[in-house]
């Protein structure tokens, strides 16, 4: 018999989006408040010096040193700055008996491929300098995909497990699934898990090429969740299960429906218990699959990508954060799929704040 899937408490969430730092401004924009006008990023161009004409919803006003102080911040890439900040704020908001367990607490970040700006700039410097090895030793660690998670640990003293996982646009599911399993198997008492992606020239051209629709904007930001296996009355939500995998080629809708059914079974949740649905990728195939499973169209929450643009590896994390702000009572389903045939789904319950 499998080890029971423990519900995981979501103690809190930190969000970075074009609306700013925090869940509240992000949720307000999803409810209809004005989003800052998509901005060109000429001011942040690196040595490549080229950016596609399509604009993006990025954090135009973000000043890392204003949040984190000036010491050492300049050497962190933007993905890392945002992650370090979200982790610090999350830990600061948790009760001391939870946040004090930093020796065992850890970090699990999902990413499409690390800081693409750091990686591309570093490769470029091997061609542009006096010799290929005349590169910046300070920038080298930023080119490794685990640097954001590692810096979160360094800045916040988190000495438990520290992992970085990749599943492309579905990396948020990868981080949540990995974290859920690690908590379930008692590798750590507290994990900060999520995904953040930065906006940069390299990512912008990848987006331009892989999403040719000119209306498809790119988004910067992400969300990190404080997760614990211990039941907690103050939790803002519960994660009941996550499933992530590849769809059978040519039978995508059936594959999605099968994955959702298996997720429901493994979490001992009945189809009738599902009150709402939310997709990070906005694909019609997902809606079709859910029609097969539930026999009726579920209440759908706003799709973050439609409002903010595509946040790549952070899109699922942002969508889950949106659910924690907007979902009605009861259990819901979050789904996402990508062009490569990956499909992920998660069962989530939002806890409405107790009335005092």
């Amino acid at each position, binding site marked *: 018999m499998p080890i029971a899937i423990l519900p995981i408490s979501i103690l809190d969430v930190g969000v970075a989006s074009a609306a700013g730092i925090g869940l509240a401004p992000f949720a307000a924009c999803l409810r209809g408040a004005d989003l800052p006008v998509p901005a060109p990023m000429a001011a942040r161009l690196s040595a490549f010096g*080229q950016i596609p004409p399509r604009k993006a919803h990025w954090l135009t006003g973000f000043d890392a040193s204003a949040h984190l102080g000036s010491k050492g911040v300049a050497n962190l890439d933007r993905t890392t700055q945002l992650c370090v900040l979200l982790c610090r704020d999350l830990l600061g908001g948790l009760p001391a008996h939870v946040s004090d367990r930093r020796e065992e607490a850890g970090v699990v970040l999902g990413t499409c491929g690390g800081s693409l700006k750091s990686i591309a700039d*570093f*490769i470029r410097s091997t061609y542009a300098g006096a010799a290929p*090895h005349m590169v910046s030793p300070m920038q080298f660690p930023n080119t490794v*995909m685990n640097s954001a998670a590692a810096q979160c*640990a360094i800045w916040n003293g988190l000495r438990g497990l520290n992992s970085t996982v*990749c599943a492309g646009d579905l990396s948020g599911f990868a981080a949540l699934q990995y974290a859920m399993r690690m908590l379930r198997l008692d590798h750590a008492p507290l994990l900060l898990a999520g995904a953040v992606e930065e906006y940069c020239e390299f990512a912008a051209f990848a987006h331009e090429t*892989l999403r040719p629709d000119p209306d498809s904007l790119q988004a910067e930001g992400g969300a990190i969740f404080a997760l614990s296996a211990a039941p907690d009355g103050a939790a803002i939500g519960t994660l009941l299960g996550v499933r992530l995998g590849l769809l059978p080629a040519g039978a995508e809708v059936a594959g999605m429906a099968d994955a959702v059914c298996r997720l429901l079974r493994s979490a001992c949740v009945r189809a009738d218990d599902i009150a709402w649905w939310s997709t990070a990728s906005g694909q019609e195939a997902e809606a079709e699959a859910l029609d097969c499973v539930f026999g009726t169209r579920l209440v759908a929450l706003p799709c973050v990508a439609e409002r903010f643009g595509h946040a790549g590896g952070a899109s699922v994390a942002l969508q889950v954060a949106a659910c924690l702000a907007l979902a009605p009572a009861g259990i819901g389903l979050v789904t996402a799929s990508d062009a490569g045939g990956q499909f992920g789904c998660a069962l989530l319950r939002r806890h409405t704040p107790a009335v005092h």
Partner: protein
Amino acid sequence: MDFGDTRSSQAEWRRVVVTGIGVVSNIGIGRDAFTQALRSGRCVVSDIRGFDTHGYPYAHAAEIHDLGDCQTDYDSLSEHHGRAACLAILAARQALADAAINKGAEAGVVLGTTNGESQLLDSIVRTWMQQGPGNVRHADWQNAPAHRIANAVSRDLGLSGESLVVATACAAGNYAIGHAADVIGAGDADIMLCGGVDAVNRSAYSGFFRLNAVTPDVCRPFDAGRQGILTGEGAAVLVLESLDHARGRGAAILAEILGYGLTCDANHMVAPHADSIARCIRVAHRRAGVKPSDIDLISAHGTGTRTNDTVEVAAIRQVFGAAAPPTVSIKSMIGHTMGAASAMGAIASIIGMQHDFIPPTVNFRAPDSACDIDCVPNHARSARLRVVENHGFAFGGNNGVLILRSGRDIGLAA
């Protein structure tokens, strides 16, 4: 001796065993060739061909130049995938065949990597600089994200389970194997393919060179005159199964995954930390249900840099005291294969347990009082190995320690 005491208290935990291995390395392609190379202490260093080396004071690596019988398959795969995915697919095909499991099985894939499709990323940047971003091939953008490596393996073998890449740099192999064991142990799958892969690339070579971490000749772990790493490449893939599943189909059991531990230094991005590594070893022992005296061999991270080897031996002494077991580094033979390194170490450990020998630390000349350990210098040693501890440490202070037990010691009784 009864290992796994901590597990037996968790009635639902399923024991996890290794039933197949596949390896693509510069010293041997496939299990038999790799075994022979480990036993004879084969070391291959060659001029780098994978990227333009003009301008480096020296440019050599443990690069794979001869794929032997796999060359045709590689050439055909490389039309659709980056080099990391190609190497991973070749190793995964071997591992699945070694385990006598058919394509199309309900099995997941978890692969570790440091640099992902590094040669594709390099090619994208180069094309961008020379011809403009509009001339970068669509397929290169598509295949560059790291997860495509695991997805490519799953698709190639028709495996319908989870498909994940773990990007915890040079410890990623152990992270991937540990996680795959967790997936099975928790009952979420019966079969998982896991391991690690990386390709030689210009970015990592330049970075390590700049840190004065690349040896001018060969890699000499634990030697007084060691001068750094030799960057390497390759893929190492293991097939894991629940013990019940393996027994049910009469599979040959090569080893058991007893447990693993993960810690983070939370101290420095590139400097390793002895206390944190020692803590990781202790976590691994506790989760595996073993004592220090149970460990017959340590397959070290052993990069051959001044710092790593000193810090690693200090951590080992913290846990084992004077009675540390033989501690070897196969990086002396295969170089630093980055995300594949600890998966290579796991496979070398399993081969040693199966064939009763300890792979040597080659290129050894003189002991260093700062990292004095029995590194089994230069020649393989006959030994009966029951439990092996496999190390993997990484940039960012990501430590992973895996504990493996010989398949012969599991016994046939259910």
